[in-house]
């Protein structure tokens, strides 16, 4: 049986067919036909955000927490351009976000029409693929294809631009008709170029040989371990060989914190013993990471003694940033499982003892007693270690990465590659929708929180019980720290005023708490955590607290800064 459907109705049906349950969006002129059709599809829950950037970050948070595609919708022009930061963040962190934008009608395209923008051109470098649907008959197939592209292989964002007249166009629709594959290129092969099984086999054998002969081996686990659900395999590899494990910023929660083989985070703000271990290692097994500059510091002096085994799904990552001895292209879970089978059981006691010798006691000191460590411990205790933590960007992000004792897989979500301030609050809304039975804490600084705090209205209207933690030090703290260390302590434009967050929360009907001393932590955080709806806690932390240690930008992992420069420390 066939029926006449508009492009907008087909779009909604295609989303339902793809299993989409939540759409984050904001209506506007060029996307109105979609919004007209939406109420007829109650399977699609729409979350009305207060800014399209939040829609993209929320879809990203949803995707990372669920492993499914996150969908966001915006109108043409400013709606579409407001998505850009969120798409760039999803692109850098390999998150399967599908963005749908309205566009001016086809006859108006290219004529600088009202709210026209070339969103295809703008998003080319920050999407895995994008589509402008010029023919309504292709719409359903494009949606199906976009979903597949976003999720296949190394995930990433895609954008579908739909002119308004295409949304309004009616065609005869046969529910049983198979979406036509609009892609001209050969399909059926993996979208990610994979090595042939033979060379994977060679790679695994070569890797096992290197591991056998290694005296000071290290495992570096990245985001790929989480994306590939390779927790058990990485743990099995570590436990069979006794090799210690480092987790990168996006690899945090890929390996349980507190495990005797877990060392911590490497790189710019990595612990001294972690970076020293890298510099002394003779073999590094990198699983699902791209050896980002925040991890390696100056690549010329990175791990000078190590032969690197690099396991990555994306062939173009192998050898991109650091030279590798063995590159294995494939799924982190599959390759690691085969590596576990290929390696011989061994221990690394002497090497672990060696690394323990690098451990430094924390040098951070905080005026008063409200330390980041105490704050994070209170959140851990209040949520019984069961919550998902979403962080923003800056000092608090590094404190959380270093100090929060993650136990559950994929319970740490942050904007790593792009480092987009304003990410935490909207992304946490997406995380809640993906994990409605769990607690989610959005941790921000006073800078990042003010970027997207309008989303408190979204939380109230849509009933999203996100717990917000604001680390208030009155500064854009990370930039201030750089100014202190590298710019003669000239605090140019980093002092930042905040409104009274408790009154602000109250204006939204959200309970708010302010913590000035450690003694107040348990009660305030506990009460916020127990709220059935959203809640906000402001922590008045030491104004000029720093994140130590720190590798100066472009510096070597061997030369950390472990204290504030002389004459500049907290005076």
């Amino acid at each position, binding site marked *: 049986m066939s029926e006449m459907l508009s492009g907008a109705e087909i779009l909604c049906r295609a989303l339902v067919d793809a299993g989409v349950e939540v759409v984050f969006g904001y209506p506007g002129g060029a996307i109105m036909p979609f919004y007209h059709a939406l109420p007829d599809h109650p399977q699609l829950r729409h979350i009305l955000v207060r800014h399209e950037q939040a829609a993209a970050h929320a879809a990203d948070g949803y995707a990372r927490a669920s492993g499914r595609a996150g969908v966001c919708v915006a109108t043409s022009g400013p709606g579409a351009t407001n998505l850009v930061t969120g798409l760039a963040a999803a692109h850098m962190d390999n998150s399967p976000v599908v963005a749908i934008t309205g566009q001016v009608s086809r006859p108006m395209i290219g004529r600088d029409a009202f709210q026209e923008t070339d969103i*295809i051109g703008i998003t*080319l470098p920050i999407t895995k693929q994008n589509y*402008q649907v010029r023919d309504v008959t292709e719409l359903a197939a494009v949606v199906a294809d976009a979903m597949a*592209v976003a999720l296949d292989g190394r995930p990433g964002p895609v954008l579908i631009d739909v002119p308004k007249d295409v949304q309004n166009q009616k065609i005869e629709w046969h529910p049983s008709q198979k979406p036509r594959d609009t892609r001209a290129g*050969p399909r059926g092969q993996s979208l*990610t*170029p994979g090595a042939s099984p033979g060379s994977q086999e060679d790679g695994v054998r070569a890797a096992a040989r290197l591991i056998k002969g290694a005296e000071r081996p290290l495992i570096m686990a990245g985001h790929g371990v989480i994306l590939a659900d390779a927790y058990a395999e990485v743990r099995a590899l570590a436990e069979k060989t006794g090799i210690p494990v480092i987790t990168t910023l996006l690899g945090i929660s890929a390996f349980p914190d507190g495990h005797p083989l877990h060392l911590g985070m490497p790189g710019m703000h990595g612990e001294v013993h972690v970076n020293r271990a890298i510099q002394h290692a003779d073999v590094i097994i990198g699983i699902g990471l791209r050896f980002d500059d925040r991890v390696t510091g100056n690549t010329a002096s990175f791990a000078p003694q190590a032969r690197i085994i690099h396991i990555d799904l994306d*062939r173009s990552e192998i050898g991109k940033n650091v030279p590798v001895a063995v590159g294995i292209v494939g799924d982190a879970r599959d390759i690691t499982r085969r590596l576990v089978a290929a390696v011989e059981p061994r221990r690394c006691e002497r090497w672990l003892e060696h690394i323990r010798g690098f451990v430094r006691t924390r040098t951070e000191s905080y005026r008063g007693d409200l330390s980041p460590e105490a704050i994070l411990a209170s959140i851990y205790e209040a949520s019984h270690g069961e919550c998902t933590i979403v962080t923003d960007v800056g000092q608090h992000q590094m404190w959380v990465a270093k100090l929060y004792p993650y136990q559950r897989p994929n319970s740490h979500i942050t904007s790593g590659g792009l480092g987009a301030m304003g990410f935490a609050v909207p992304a946490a809304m997406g995380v809640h929708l993906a994990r409605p039975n769990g607690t989610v804490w959005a941790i921000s600084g006073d800078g990042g929180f003010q970027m997207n705090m309008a989303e408190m209205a979204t939380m109230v209207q849509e009933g999203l019980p996100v717990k917000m933690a604001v680390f208030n030090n009155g500064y854009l703290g990370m930039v201030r720290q750089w100014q202190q260390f590298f710019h003669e302590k000239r605090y140019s434009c980093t002092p930042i005023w905040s409104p009274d967050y408790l009154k602000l929360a109250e204006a939204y009907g959200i309970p708010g708490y302010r913590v000035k001393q450690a003694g107040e932590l348990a009660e305030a955080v506990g009460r916020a955590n127990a709220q059935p709806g959203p809640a906000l806690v402001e922590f008045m932390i030491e104004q000029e607290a720093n994140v130590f240690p720190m590798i100066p930008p472009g510096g070597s992992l061997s030369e950390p800064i472990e204290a504030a420069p002389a004459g500049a420390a907290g005076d």
Partner: protein
Amino acid sequence: MSGHTVAVLLDDALVTVNRAFGVLRRRNVPIEGLALHPSGTAGEARLTFVLKADAATADRVAQQFHKMIGVRSVMVLANGDSPTEAKR
């Protein structure tokens, strides 16, 4: 440093070609000359450029194109070599 000639067969669609140019620009690829022709097969175009870089860079560039949706094959020709399809 030996040069390489790279030929990319890709979908003859403006958005795909645009994305291919974007790879060259965004990845800061040192190129000399750039030509786009119909390949002779309907719906397919050939993008050709000379890469002023070593073999390792040429391979990285080939891999960046390989993962681009709409790219069908990538050929890399080093000076004095016969053309070979870049391994995935």
